[in-house]
């Protein structure tokens, strides 16, 4: 199955800019379906970006983040060719991981 994480990391000197688009329904648990039944909560609870084994970005999410979240941030201390590992865990215990090379 294709990864749910699309990521692009670009190094500009000492600063690396990271953009990621993650495919996930991010159901808040407050929305009803066409039959009037609540769609159960199903959202990413933790999202981690790691470089050299150290977390450079850590997100603890809840019901307020929308479907297919998009994340953009910058961090220092990485260079072109380095690996960036991205992983997430959701409230149902499902996970996904991917590794991208910093361009």
């Amino acid at each position: 199955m294709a990864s749910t994480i699309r990521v692009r990391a670009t190094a500009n000197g000492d600063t690396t800019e990271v953009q990621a688009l993650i495919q996930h329904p991010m159901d808040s648990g407050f929305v009803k379906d066409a039959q009037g039944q609540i769609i159960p909560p199903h959202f990413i609870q933790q999202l981690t970006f790691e470089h050299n084994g150290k977390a450079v970005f850590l997100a603890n999410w809840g019901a307020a983040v929308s479907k297919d979240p998009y994340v953009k941030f910058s961090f220092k201390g990485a260079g072109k060719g380095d690996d960036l590992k991205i992983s997430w865990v959701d409230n149902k215990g499902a996970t996904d991981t991917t590794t991208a090379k910093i361009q």
Partner: protein
Amino acid sequence: MRVRAILTSAVAALAAAALACAAASAIAAPDRPDPVADAKAFQNFFTRKFPKVKYEDFVNGPYSMNEDLHRQWEEKEQFPPYEFALEAGKEMFATPFKNGKTYADCFPNKGNGIRQNYPYFDEKEGKVVTLELALNRCREANGEAPYSYVKDEMAALTAYMAFTSRGNKMDIKIPDDPRALEAYENGKRYFYTRRGQLNFSCATCHVQSPGERIRAEILAPALGIMNAMPIYRSEWSSMGTTSRRFMTCNSQTRAVPLEPQSDEYRDVEYFLSYVANGLPISGPGARP
């Protein structure tokens, strides 16, 4: 006495002449639709109203109307929200039907780079055929159930077909057929007719008020408004088809929406696409 008689007869003659003139012009056929002139006037209206907007930029809807939105959208395009639908569409397009045939068998050039030719007027059927309609007909001709016009699958398929046509200039043809002209006129009439309890026509928002706000949204100009379809709307958190947009616009003016791909919708898509001839396909699009 004689003077008065002359005067009365003169007035009578004038009145008769005026009546005859009016009658004559009424008898003479109502202005024959001139789509070429319409398109020129339509495009001029917008380019004159927004002289700072680059011609090709009109297809970007509200982003062409607001600098801040434009900047945000440019950033978004680096990682567009329609990516997932686009990939799904590519996969769907390549997957054969149960009978072994594919979508490519139904379309010219295997379905690649043809979005700008839709809708077209089918002279055999005597009606306008849109891309969505053509896709479902392809499915039915190959023993598959048609997709809903307002749900994800149709949006994904049309997203893929739009993507392969990006940059191609809209190229809608109106054959020299009175039925085609009638369809075009119907579409034009639909576009300008007020409807719904809120008494809006499409033109009320997209001709009178592009760049202005309706509640929190910035309105898109009508010029090129079909070029970015289908669109991922943040409001929907999903990809939406042309059919979906027409129906929701209707209900937003408190008009009961018509059935997807009903004559009126097909005709208004025909009209709007035709008057945007020359503008590039920018779909699939992302909108607020």
